[in-house]
């Protein structure tokens, strides 16, 4: 196995008494796209949100097990969530640009981190928006409100916003489920362009999407990881019966 950037061992998560994740063991190598698939309520989004500690925001959540990012335990008492989230960025289901200009949206993280050099900020804005494949559409409106953009453009601006703080890992929580098909395919293209430089983990309900973009696919069900493999194997030749049933729509 090549270098693993993120590892989870025996990860359990409880909402109050209810066990939502039942001992997940899943590792991610650097670079490439991994898709997390499974029926609604299977725990895939919950799992994704443990990876940058977004579940901390929800009261009454208990997490046991270990998640290590480059060998460091994310849940160690000394772990700094702010630093973690800088390195493990996240894009959400609903595009959530801040109600500011496109330019300000993209540089927000950097500016708050104290970066003032205008040239550097300009360069980052262009680079990030290019990477997110939305530069050509917005380059003439950088100082207009990001809220005026279409949903798909907003989502790509949100991706650019994450890229601007140069994370190593990008988590995406059903990034296209609120978008129309054309916008969805633009997001997919964006992700495919990014897969050589970033470790991308995306939750998706759309099996075709997983098969189109993911290098690896992990199938979750009832809070357990059923199987994880090269995407091709999951779709053509799954090891588990459950996976096959889900993939073929014969869900039982």
């Amino acid at each position, binding site marked *: 196995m090549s270098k693993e950037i993120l590892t989870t061992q025996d990860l359990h998560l409880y909402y109050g008494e209810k066990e939502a994740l039942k001992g997940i063991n899943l590792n991610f190598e650097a670079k490439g796209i991994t898709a997390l698939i499974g029926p609604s309520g299977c725990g895939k989004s919950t799992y994704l949100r443990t990876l940058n500690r977004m579940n901390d*925001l929800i009261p009454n959540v208990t997490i046991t097990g270990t998640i290590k990012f480059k060998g460091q335990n994310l849940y160690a008492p000394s772990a700094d969530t702010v630093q*973690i*989230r800088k*390195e493990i960025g996240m894009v959400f289901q609903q595009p*959530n640009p801040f*109600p*500011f200009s496109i330019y300000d949206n993209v540089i*927000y993280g950097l500016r708050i981190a104290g970066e003032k050099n205008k040239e550097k900020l300009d360069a980052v804005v262009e680079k990030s928006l290019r990477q997110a494949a939305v530069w050509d559409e917005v380059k003439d409106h950088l100082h207009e409100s990001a809220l005026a953009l279409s949903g798909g453009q907003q989502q790509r601006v949100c991706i650019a916003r*994450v890229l601007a703080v140069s994370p190593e890992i990008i988590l995406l929580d059903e990034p296209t489920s609120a978008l129309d098909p054309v916008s969805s395919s633009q997001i997919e293209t964006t992700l495919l362009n990014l897969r050589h430089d970033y470790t991308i983990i995306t939750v998706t309900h759309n099996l075709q999407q997983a098969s189109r973009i993911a290098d690896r696919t992990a199938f979750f069900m009832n809070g357990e990881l059923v199987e994880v493999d090269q995407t091709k194997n999951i779709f053509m030749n799954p090891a588990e019966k459950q996976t096959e049933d889900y993939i073929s729509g014969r869900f039982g």
Partner: protein
Amino acid sequence: MMNPKTQNKVAIGTLYGIAGLVVLILMALLGYILVSGLPQLSWHFLTAPAKAFLKGGGVGIQLYNSFYLLILAMLISFPIALGAAIYLYEYAKDNWVTTTIRTAIEILSSLPSVVVGLFGFLFFVVKLNLGFSILSGAFALTFFNLPLLTRSIEDSLRTIDTTQREGGLALGLSRWETVTRVILPAAVPSILTGVILSAGRVFGEAAALIYTAGQSAPALDFTDWNPFNISSPLNPMRPAETLAVHIWKINSEGIMPDAKAISSGSSAVLVLAILLFNFAARYLGKRLYKRLTSA
């Protein structure tokens, strides 16, 4: 038995009737106040000091006192309300402490203002020995205003979607940075609207001030801006009758021959000022939202 369609029509008709009645009452009140008050207004009326026994007095000092007291009260209550609202909405966990605070705020906001005034009298005026003064009045108004303002700011924060908070945190902003750099800027227009609306209520408040800021309006020297001089407009330790208190006083013990006219004129000024606050709140809120959201 009516059929559903007729039922619907009757229901809508009734609701329109009720809404119309509310508007009608408001119009009648406003109309009466403005029709009887507007003719009294003149530059002299708005700027001249009041006269105790003679006719021809104005409300200049009372008007100024109202604004000064309003600004002081806002300066004291806004930071506290903002902090309380941010704590309650952004940080506080849902436990008995928070519930207690919320209940306390709720009760405080429904306290009759005359009770707030009497409390202010006993505590600020007598106990802390501040006397009948602008400062006592400002503190009493803070008590009166704080719960309302806290609630209104909390509501403003609530209108900002959770996804915005997640977006900020997911960028590696701390909780505090997310609040101050993402949530507050987005909430500013609606916070401002709330502040101005509560300013309108404070501006028209009388009962809380009668026993705290006092019922006399000593002459002011508008060329003297040293806050330590007793005749300076800025002196916070002088008694200061406001416009609303003035109206109450004229009507209960006014002995000047033109008491009725002055009372009508003062009411018109008060109502106009509050209307102005309301329209300003809407206008500024909208303008600001546009500016902040499209840079």
